[in-house]
């Protein structure tokens, strides 16, 4: 949940740091992805470079959290919120790539890895961050997720799952939440929601809620979370920590898995001995998977942070990093290529063309994004 500093900054003279202050404010602290000599990784980077944009949250040089866009190869990083009074996170593109939703909290608050979708205020904006509008009051519209046409939001609270009309903020339908408690995402075909639920095992499971029937079913039971849909709406990607791992003092490492939405055809995608892998997200063309994670499993809100990464789905299963327990469990898994991206949290990928802005961190059309005033009214 936090981001590494450029290590070489520490050895620069203070005067140089001061001179660079204005520029740093427009970039995440670890904007430049690590360079590689691996030709397979370079080919992967070239392959994805023009396949849309990734939005992610990262800490700025000024210490607050902003939202950033970058190309899928990690290039052309630009700050799209630039709000030093607030921290932003949990950014989701609408399915058509025209709109963006995110949560905004106070500068002195921190996002919690299990509550971030319900923290602060929901803000809706254009996909490039322009025209940000605070949509609700503190804690309102929790865990908002776009409907396929972008006209509604699915939200989750103790009172249930409610579908909200974006134009009027009217609740169009309320559904029993059936044990769902976080990370709901509306399926691309509009028929289901994915989410994390308590209803199927001793602990949290990835599940699917059929909107027409109001019925929930498990996709993967136990120690599973951060589900998201493949663009076809028939498969899901999620994180899972298999039981019985000896590594990490018996706690094990969380890995990326996928399954059909009915829970069948489950398979391991990516894991690393030494890092929990979270936030799996599938590219708009279904050919690549994007993820993040860190060793402490807390999103690393207070320390070094962790880079995002990208792999080809066709190259999976992949075990990254040094060989260990996960390699022993998946001896035939590949080793890559793994394209390491800037440090970032909860990435989301759109195939839309957002290249109208320049690469200086300032949006070309209308200059720096204004800080939206806190609303006095709530919907």
């Amino acid at each position: 949940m936090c981001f590494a500093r450029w290590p070489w900054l520490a050895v620069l003279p203070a005067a140089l740091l001061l001179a660079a202050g204005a520029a740093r404010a427009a970039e995440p602290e670890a904007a430049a992805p690590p360079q590689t000599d691996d030709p397979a990784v370079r080919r992967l980077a070239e392959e994805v470079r023009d396949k849309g944009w990734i939005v992610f949250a990262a800490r700025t040089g000024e210490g607050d959290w902003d939202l950033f866009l970058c190309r899928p190869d990690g290039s052309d990083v630009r700050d799209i919120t630039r709000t030093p009074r607030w921290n932003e996170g949990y950014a989701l593109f609408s399915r058509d790539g025209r709109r963006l939703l995110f949560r905004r909290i106070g500068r002195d608050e921190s996002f919690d890895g299990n509550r971030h979708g319900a923290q602060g205020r929901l803000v809706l904006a254009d996909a490039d961050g322009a025209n940000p509008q605070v949509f609700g009051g503190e804690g309102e519209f929790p865990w908002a997720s776009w409907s396929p046409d972008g006209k509604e939001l699915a939200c989750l609270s103790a009172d249930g799952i409610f579908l909200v009309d974006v134009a009027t903020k009217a609740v169009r339908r309320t559904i029993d939440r059936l044990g769902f408690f976080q990370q709901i995402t509306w399926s691309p075909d509009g028929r289901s929601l994915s989410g994390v639920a308590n209803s199927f095992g001793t602990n949290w499971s990835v599940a699917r809620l059929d909107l027409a029937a109001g019925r929930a079913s498990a996709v993967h039971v136990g120690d599973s979370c951060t589900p998201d849909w493949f663009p076809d709406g028939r498969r899901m990607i999620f994180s899972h920590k298999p039981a019985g791992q000896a590594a990490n003092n018996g706690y094990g490492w969380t890995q990326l898995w996928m399954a059909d939405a009915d829970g069948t055809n489950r398979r391991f995608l990516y894991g690393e001995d030494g890092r929990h892998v979270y936030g799996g997200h599938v590219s708009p063309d279904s050919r690549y998977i994007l993820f993040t994670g860190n060793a402490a499993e807390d999103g690393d809100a207070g320390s070094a942070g962790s880079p995002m990464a990208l792999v080809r789905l066709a190259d999976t299963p992949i075990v990254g990093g040094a060989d260990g327990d996960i390699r022993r469990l998946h001896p035939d898994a590949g080793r890559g290529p793994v394209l390491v991206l800037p440090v970032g949290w909860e990435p989301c990928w759109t195939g839309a063309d957002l290249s109208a802005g320049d690469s200086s961190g300032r949006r070309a059309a209308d200059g720096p994004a204004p800080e939206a005033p806190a609303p006095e009214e709530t919907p």
Partner: protein
Amino acid sequence: MRRAALLALLAAAAATGCGRPGSVELVARLVEVPPGAIREDPLYNYAAILKYEVVRRDRGPEVEPVIYVAHYNPRKPRARAADRFITGVGGTLKTFRAGDLHRLCLEPDAEKWYVGGVINFYLGAADTIYWAVRTDAVPEPPAGRRP
């Protein structure tokens, strides 16, 4: 004699009071703490479902003889269980131990009160999961006089 001791014990428990939050107030014995129900994992603030045998109901609607109760942050003393996301839980209990008596102030239907991860070794065992608003320790009667 045993009955008199029990009544004295329950009277003492009532005297300590719960501050009377919640719509149900009762004294119950914690049946067990399933292994793995209370994880020593500071990263996750979850609720654990624990099983109780009801000894006496003091307030609120009738309850089953055996109830299931969701406790937030069970690895922490009740006085420190609340956090910036989940407020309004507390009590004097420091540790959950099988066989102990607790004075519980509860709300029925934990889902209405808590949105978060749950560890539940009793899936499907009950229609109602109670939400523990306050959990106080109740002193045990002298040996041989357990209720």
